[in-house]
């Protein structure tokens, strides 16, 4: 925690270190959750005692393009053997990209007692800490969740359109090639799942991974992050910000950075993102 205070984060308590996790492997008040971009990683070895939350099979509605319902979330949490008091620690591959996505979905259901392990799976592996293929088993609980809150940290297309018209800040966290639209129409390759390329008008481009120290997957310091989001792009902590990417997964990482590490009060993730906007009829697009 001292390390995270030193780095100047607005809410340092939201992060835990690999050391902290290593010393809480047998803490029944803590549940470690691995959430990955690569579906094989958990099965190939995970932190002892860690459970897996898979974005595709655990967090999505099986029919609609939406997240799981309150009932689905209660079933998931009960299966993981946690209660509203359990401290959840998320970690994963790709610099915690999917871990922050799972964290974001869990916040839709108000599980505030949640943390991210700084550095994620990469740092754990670099430190040669133990991994196991043994799947843990915990007694199921009877978790009760509130209704999903889609208003506070989630944005829908009509709200994004109003946001564009009001000239409020948007952050496109995709790669520069996706932002410019040049990566959409490569011959012979599958496309992005969108009919048009480009970005939402007014959006600035800050690829999500710029918030990370690539050598060990840890988050950059608050000063370094401010230099990127405020110095380069002119964002301010009291801005009403909407972030997006392709389906809302990379942008959940930037949502986490702006909200918890820089203390922005009003950041929403547009999970419809480019796969929705790039297919909508009669919405403005910039290239």
């Amino acid at each position, binding site marked *: 925690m001292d390390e995270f205070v030193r780095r100047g984060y607005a809410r340092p308590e939201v992060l835990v270190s690999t050391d902290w996790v290593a010393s809480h492997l047998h803490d029944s008040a803590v549940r470690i959750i691995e959430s990955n*971009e*690569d*579906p*094989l*990683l958990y*099965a*190939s070895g995970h932190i002892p005692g860690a459970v897996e939350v898979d*974005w*595709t*099979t655990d967090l999505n509605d099986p029919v609609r393009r939406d997240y799981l319902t309150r009932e689905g979330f209660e079933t998931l949490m009960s299966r993981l053997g946690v209660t509203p008091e359990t401290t959840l620690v998320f970690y994963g*591959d*790709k610099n915690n990209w999917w871990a922050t996505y799972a964290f974001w979905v869990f916040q839709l259901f108000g599980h505030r007692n949640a943390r991210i392990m700084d550095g994620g*799976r*990469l740092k754990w*592996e670099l430190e040669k800490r133990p991994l196991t293929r043994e799947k843990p088993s915990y007694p199921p609980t009877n978790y009760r969740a509130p209704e999903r809150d889609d208003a506070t940290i989630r944005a829908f297309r009509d709200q994004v359109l109003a946001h564009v018209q009001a000239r409020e800040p948007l952050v496109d966290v995709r790669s520069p090639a996706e932002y410019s639209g040049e*990566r959409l129409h*490569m011959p*012979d*390759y*599958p496309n*992005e*799942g969108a009919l048009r390329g480009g970005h939402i008008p007014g959006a600035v481009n800050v690829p999500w991974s710029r918030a990370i120290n690539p050598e060990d997957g840890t988050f950059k310091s608050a000063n370094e992050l401010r230099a990127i989001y405020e110095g380069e792009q002119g964002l301010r902590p009291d801005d009403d910000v909407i972030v997006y990417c*392709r*389906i809302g*997964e990379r942008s959940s990482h930037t949502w986490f950075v702006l909200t918890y590490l820089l203390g922005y009060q009003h950041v929403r993730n547009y999970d419809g993102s480019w*796969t929705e906007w790039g297919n909508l009829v009669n919405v403005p697009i910039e290239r």
Partner: protein
Amino acid sequence: MTDYPPALAEVLADFAFVTSRAERAELLIDWADRFKPVPSHIAVPPYPEDRRVPFCESEAFVWAHPRQDGTLQFYFAVENPQGLSAMALAAILDATLSGAPVEQVAAVSPDIVLRLFGNDISMGKGQGLMGMVSMVQAAARAFLREKEG
């Protein structure tokens, strides 16, 4: 499936019998363990951008070199050390398509990714892996065009 190279058809048949997510993961991890990165006499990092698989978050690269028997030898690099799925697919493609009749390789559909990895793979992951197959397919088609042309 009958038009696919026999080695690929065999692997697809193995995966057709998979009954659980865990079993599929085990099979794929076994393949990932067999992955051999592109040898240094073919390419060394930093790899050229035209060999990079579009949309692949595991930073995969693909090369195709003509063999003396008139077929192609495929090589792969996966720069993300945690890119197990990309490594598994690279190992399968190398084992089943290198040395196979190029006409058959050119006809391999990127949809084999779903038959190997299952339908519940995320869109982004699926696109990256399909991009690897598409690059192999595109290389085979280009090779055939050159031969005919």
